């Protein structure tokens, strides 16, 4: 989609420090990143490099130590209106059923109850969980919980999706299925996405651009434009030579990182 307009999300010289009970951890340093309107950007990087931290800053949940993050040119103060986040842990409400968890953003928006339920139904089907509406999170498997969290964010339908390993605990097939659906949805409406994953193939298959981060303190190490035509066949694209080339390059960048940096 649109590769033309001013950046939707713009991060400049961002640094984040955690300071808790006297200990100080620099999680991010000098991060500079733009996401254009309707662009799909993936972030990969070694465990603990600050990817989740980055998302939290964009979501307005953390205050940076230095630098700025702005959406549509406006610096982020508090939680911006435009973002929707899938947390690395699922952040489901344990006391609400699956249905209630998914309809939460709709209820906040004040949709009529009937519509909430219809939409919820649709989304649960999309993530392969119809029939589980009345279950409590405790009664779900790890992957099912994640899918509920996904459905919830889809229900919110924000301008910018912030997704922290959304497909982490899913098996390869479910992953493909939901990834495909998400991509189709994205193709249709063209939201901006900041997507964190550990799966390089997934990153390439979905994104317009892949960002590689270095080990802690996280910096941006490399960027790769993914010049593959859309709409892409989510699974079969993997056999494209361009894809393979990219995969190798990113892998090399990261391998370099892990042996060198991560302590």
């Amino acid at each position, binding site marked *: 989609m649109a590769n033309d307009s001013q950046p939707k999300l713009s991060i400049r010289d961002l640094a984040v420090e955690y300071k808790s009970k006297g200990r100080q951890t620099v999680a991010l340093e000098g991060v500079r990143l733009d996401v254009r309107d309707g662009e799909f950007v993936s972030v990969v990087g070694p465990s603990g490099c600050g990817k989740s931290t980055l998302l939290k800053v964009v979501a307005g*949940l953390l205050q940076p130590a230095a630098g700025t993050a702005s959406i549509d040119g406006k610096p982020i103060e508090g939680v911006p*209106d435009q973002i929707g986040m899938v947390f690395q842990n699922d952040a489901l*409400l*344990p*006391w*609400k059923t699956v249905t209630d968890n998914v309809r939460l953003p709709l209820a906040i928006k004040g949709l009529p109850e009937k519509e909430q339920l219809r939409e919820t139904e649709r989304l649960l089907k999309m993530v392969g969980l119809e029939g589980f509406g009345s279950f409590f999170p405790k009664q779900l498997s790890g992957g099912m919980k994640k899918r509920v969290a996904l459905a919830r964010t889809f229900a919110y339908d924000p301008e910018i999706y912030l997704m922290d390993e959304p497909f982490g605990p899913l098996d390869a097939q479910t992953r493909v299925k939901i990834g495909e659906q998400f991509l189709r949805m994205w193709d249709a409406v063209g939201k901006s996405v900041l997507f964190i994953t550990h799966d390089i193939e997934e990153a390439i298959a979905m994104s317009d651009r892949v960002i590689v981060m270095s080990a802690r303190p996280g910096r941006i190490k490399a960027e790769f434009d993914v010049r593959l035509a859309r709409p892409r066949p989510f699974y079969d694209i993997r056999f494209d030579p361009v894809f393979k080339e990219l995969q190798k390059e990113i892998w090399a960048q990261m391998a370099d990182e892990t042996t060198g940096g991560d302590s």
Partner: protein
Amino acid sequence: MAAKKNKGAARSASFREREYSKTSVWLGRLVVLALVLGLWEVLSGRAFNSFWLSKPSLIGGRIVEMIGDGDLWFHMSVTLQEAIGGLAIGMIGGTLLGVGLAFSGIFEKWIYPYMMALYSLPRVSLAPLFIVWFGIGLTSKIIMVVAMVIFVAFYNAFEGIRNIDKDLMDMMSTYKAKWTHKLRWVVLPSITVWLLTSVRLNIGMALIGSVIAELVGSNRGLGYYITYSSNMLDTTGIFTGLVLIMAIAVVLEQLVLLIERRLLRYR
């Protein structure tokens, strides 16, 4: 599937998950009750002086007698009014106060120590002052109960909020939830466990509060009846009053349990 059929559903073999049949639970309770009462009955007058501990049979007789001449309801109704009225007001007030203070920023830090100081005030000593301030009627007695109840409610609500999962609040924020939504979807459910604790602790507190209130300036109520009996050296009367109070506590507790079972279904 020729293998042996086990007891049915998958059950955690481990920690605190076993469920017991209703009958075995209630039977056990009855047995415990019968045992205590039986021992009391038999030992009273034998192992120890029956004057100071009375006897279940005497107490039972007294209760029947009181039902007969209407005294039971006469005294119990007032105590119930005071206790339940005070409990309701105190719980609501205390909880609101706790939630409010927990979200009040630095204000919390200023006020909190004084709340705990007030909590430690012996209400018994305040009873006469309460009469001066609030008169002698039902109001002043309900206020006494409120004074007993409100702090535990406050404290538990406050502590419950301190223990809310920050991630869930963050999640709500990302959906631009207004505080009414946060309250309904996260805060209240999160502190439910704490509120239930505080209701249960407060049932006892409320009853004690009404008894203390009735020490001063009353002419009915179970607390009055106990004091009166004490003055008459009528230990059976004292114990009858105490037993009735315990009975109220048990009934109220069971009510709370019913509510709890509904509210904590998700666990």
